[in-house]
């Protein structure tokens, strides 16, 4: 079969010799091959762009070497030039035309995706232009305020507030506006399409250290607590006999001789051991009572309850004013009291390790619960509630026992390192069943999965955990494999360290109710001292939209992998960051240029929800940016890291004209919730406040104020005394950019307010 329908290929004839069926299939394939003629407009446009880029290279670098520049120099030069003026890249170019009769315009920004936000936009024309006409024809999307200037035949467009970072831009000059001084015109409008680089991520800032001050001397073991007036109380404090201060500091502390403080060295006489001692931040320690096996201040701060050894193997329980005055013995316990707390302002709950009792200020006593013999030991009582922590006799995971119902809440891997927030709502513990051990937190009474606190050194083992009053902050020791310990104070929600101090041989960590100070016992060969340090990050500590560090890492990597490089997603990374069954590769649109993480939200179950917009920059062929909306859910894995457990992505669509929300964040500081809403356009400030509203979970609109900052294109929404929980931010399309274009579409996002 030498000829097949007029087609003859001797190579295939030879290749398929003796296999006529394959030759027939070859004929079939060839006859079916698609035949298409390219769009001449595309062909001409691409030629113009290529020739212009080639010309620019030759003109800018000299005719010999321009092509030898690497792609990074060639294509992305604008990204690092800053505000350098740019020339070249033909946008309206008609070959075989007299350039004097036809206006051509050039901008090097075209087709670049990493233009510096500080860049100016320069359009170089081939002849002197009617400047006013050209300026009048300029339209920029997203809308930004600009000023115009001319340098020779080049129009320099300078943004008033810089370009928005990580944003696709289309600069259009209407064809009718492109007129030269001589009357020449252009054959088409100018479309300059480019994208800006993300604002560089600031380098991570190391959390501050702690600067402890020695408050006094401690006896053996015991516990610390903060008094309502902010003093530190030790159940086994050592009251100094007398003290004098010398001006020169000493590097070592000695409970019986010299203690370094910022003010100098306190030289003291031999101390009186074993007492309930209050250590004010400044001034002299005072004794509140005898050494106690347990102590707690009432919720209203007016009373102090203590359990004191009666010398006969039992305990006496006292209630006094918070300063230790007017102590009243409430009851005697034949067995030693190991823990006590207040469940209300007039009732104390205490335990001897086996039974739980209550006694009120009128001395009425009840037995609340008794553990069956041999089942375990009660080692702690949850403040204000009905829970006790029980270490089982068998050494398995400890559990919270609701003594009012008998229900258990198992704390996975917990042994004796358990802590409760002062409000009794949160429990934190060390899961010693994993290696290294983990710091887990959970709501008291919850049956959900615990949340693992992200620690700065994930190879280190946490221990000695303590919580603040509201459960927003934790302090713990982190000990690495080499045995080097650090004291870490961190936000529970995000794991963000507020302070890290290289302190060894410390114990009895105690956070102040507000989390702004930490007290601990420092154990040295010379004895034990009570120290206190302000937590530097705590005063500025914010809660709200911050998500766990691991979740944020996964989210950032996942989105970056979707964008990939040169329009190609990083499929390996996407697969590695996706849980089984999530096919992120197939749901990721092609040729992405950038992405916005609009909003993140921590779900009640600890999962992290992220709203993302995936962007394809406009180009010469498609002069409108395209966008796909994506919702990602991340969940913590048993190993501690986060994976994407679902990804839902819409089809790409043309981006609507008008301003867009590009990011929302929320923070709560000192009871004031602040939302930051960033836009890609310069807004009409007078439309901002009325367009923004915040709605509570119950559906009521919360009083708020909104202030627009033109430089950052950000609206700051402030809500005083917002209720804790989920809020909904609504932005109506009555919000306009400075050109009067309405918000591209109404916007709603869930944000979180924390008390």
């Amino acid at each position, binding site marked *: 079969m030498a000829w097949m329908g007029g087609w003859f290929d001797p*190579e295939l004839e030879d290749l398929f010799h003796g296999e006529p069926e394959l030759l027939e299939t070859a004929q079939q394939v060839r006859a*079916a091959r698609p035949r298409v003629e390219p769009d001449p407009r595309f062909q001409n446009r691409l*030629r113009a762009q290529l020739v212009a880029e080639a010309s620019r290279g030759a003109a800018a670098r000299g005719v010999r070497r321009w092509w*030898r520049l690497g792609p990074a120099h060639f294509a992305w030069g604008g990204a690092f030039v800053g505000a350098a003026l740019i020339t070249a890249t033909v946008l309206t170019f008609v070959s075989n035309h007299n350039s004097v009769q036809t206006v051509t315009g050039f901008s090097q920004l075209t087709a670049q995706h990493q233009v510096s936000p500080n860049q100016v936009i320069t359009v170089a024309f081939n002849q002197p232009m009617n400047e006013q006409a050209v300026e009048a024809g300029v339209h920029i999307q997203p809308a930004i305020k600009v000023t115009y200037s001319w340098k020779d035949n080049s129009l320099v467009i300078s943004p008033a507030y810089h370009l928005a970072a990580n944003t696709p831009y289309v600069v259009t000059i209407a064809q009718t506006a492109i007129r030269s001084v001589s009357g020449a015109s252009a054959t088409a409008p100018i479309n300059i399409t480019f994208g800006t680089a993300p604002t560089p991520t600031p380098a991570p800032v190391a959390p501050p250290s702690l600067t402890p001050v020695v408050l006094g001397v401690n006896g053996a073991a015991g516990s610390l607590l903060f008094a309502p007036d902010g003093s530190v109380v030790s159940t086994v404090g050592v009251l100094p006999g007398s003290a004098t201060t010398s001006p020169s500091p000493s590097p070592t502390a000695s409970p019986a001789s010299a203690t370094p403080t910022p003010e100098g060295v306190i030289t003291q006489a031999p101390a009186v051991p074993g007492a309930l001692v209050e250590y004010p931040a400044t001034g002299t320690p005072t004794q509140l009572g005898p050494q106690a096996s347990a102590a707690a201040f009432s919720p209203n701060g007016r009373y102090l309850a203590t359990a004191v050894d009666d010398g006969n193997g039992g305990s006496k329980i006292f209630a006094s004013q918070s300063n230790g005055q007017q102590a009243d013995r409430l009851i005697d316990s034949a067995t030693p009291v190991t823990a006590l707390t207040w469940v209300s302002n007039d009732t104390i709950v205490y335990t001897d390790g086996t039974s739980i009792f209550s006694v009120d200020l009128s001395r009425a006593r009840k037995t609340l619960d008794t553990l069956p013999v041999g089942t375990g030991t009660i080692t702690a009582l949850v403040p204000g509630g009905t829970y006790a922590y029980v270490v089982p006799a068998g050494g398995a995971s400890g559990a919270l026992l609701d003594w009012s119902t008998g229900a258990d809440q198992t704390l996975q891997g917990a042994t004796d390192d358990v802590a409760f927030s002062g409000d009794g709502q949160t429990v934190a513990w060390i899961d010693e069943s994993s290696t290294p051990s983990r710091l887990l937190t959970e709501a008291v009474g919850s049956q959900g999965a615990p949340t693992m606190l992200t620690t700065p050194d994930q190879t280190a083992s946490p221990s000695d955990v303590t919580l603040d009053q509201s459960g927003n902050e934790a302090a713990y020791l982190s000990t690495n494999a080499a045995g080097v310990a650090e004291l870490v104070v961190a936000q529970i929600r995000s794991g963000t360290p507020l302070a890290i101090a290289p302190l060894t041989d410390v114990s009895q960590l105690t956070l102040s109710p507000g989390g702004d100070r930490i007290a601990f016992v420092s154990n040295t060969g010379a004895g034990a001292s009570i120290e206190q340090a302000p937590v530097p990050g705590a005063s500025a500590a914010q809660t709200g939209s911050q998500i766990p560090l691991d979740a944020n890492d996964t989210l950032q990597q996942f989105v970056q992998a979707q964008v990939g490089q040169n329009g190609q997603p990083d499929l390996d990374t996407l697969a590695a960051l996706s849980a089984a069954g999530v096919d992120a590769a197939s749901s990721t649109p092609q040729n992405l240029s950038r992405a916005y993480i609009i909003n993140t939200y921590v779900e009640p179950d600890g999962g992290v929800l992220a709203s993302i917009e995936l962007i394809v920059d406009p180009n010469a062929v498609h002069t409108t940016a395209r966008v796909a909306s994506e919702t990602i859910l991340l969940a913590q894995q048993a190993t501690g890291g986060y994976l994407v457990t679902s990804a839902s992505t819409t089809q790409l669509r043309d981006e609507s004209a008008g301003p867009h929300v590009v990011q929302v964040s929320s923070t709560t500081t000192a009871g004031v919730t602040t939302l930051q809403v960033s836009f890609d356009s310069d807004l009409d400030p007078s439309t901002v406040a009325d367009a923004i509203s915040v709605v509570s979970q119950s559906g009521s609109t919360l009083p708020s104020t909104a202030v627009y900052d033109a430089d950052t294109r950000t609206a700051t929404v402030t809500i005083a005394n917002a209720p804790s929980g989920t809020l909904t931010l609504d932005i109506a399309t009555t919000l306009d950019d400075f050109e009067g274009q309405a918000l591209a579409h109404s916007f709603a996002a869930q944000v979180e307010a924390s008390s």
Partner: protein
Amino acid sequence: MTLPRAYEDQLVERAKQDADAFGELYDHYFGQIYRFVFSRLRDQEAAEDVTSEVFFKALRAIGRYKPAGHPFSAWLYQISVNAINDHYRSRKPTSSLDSAIAVADPARPVDDRVVDSAEAARVWAAIDDLPPQQRAAMTLKLGEDLKLAQIGEILGKSEGAVKLLIHRGMIGVRLRLGVVVAVEEQL
């Protein structure tokens, strides 16, 4: 149609310094590169995007290009093959073996089948399902009528290896079109 080799070599050398010379190369090769890309993607927008990418890559790399006895078109095809493969890697599959088999009717005469444009698309969808190297070799041979040696230059393979790719590719296409399946069932 190819340019005389000596003239093409001179043109390429000039294109390293002269935008107009690059424009002339573009004018000469645009059509066949575009058609090749389109034959592989069968989507105008995607074909335009990939064709743009091919020529911009060529422009940026032409300073390093050395003819080494091969036609300039071989280099452009090489860039195209890579760009197309990148494109395929980045997108969802648009055809499947099932869909190719579903429309194939081996009982019909070949000529009848190829006049059916829908089936033409299915035939090339079967090629889409081939492994990348077989796909490229098949497209260059049956879509562009290139010589085996030229295909070898583009793919960086020997002529014998190209023959093997096309032979296997053809069997693969028949399998996907249901021809072989039908034969096996008769057996």
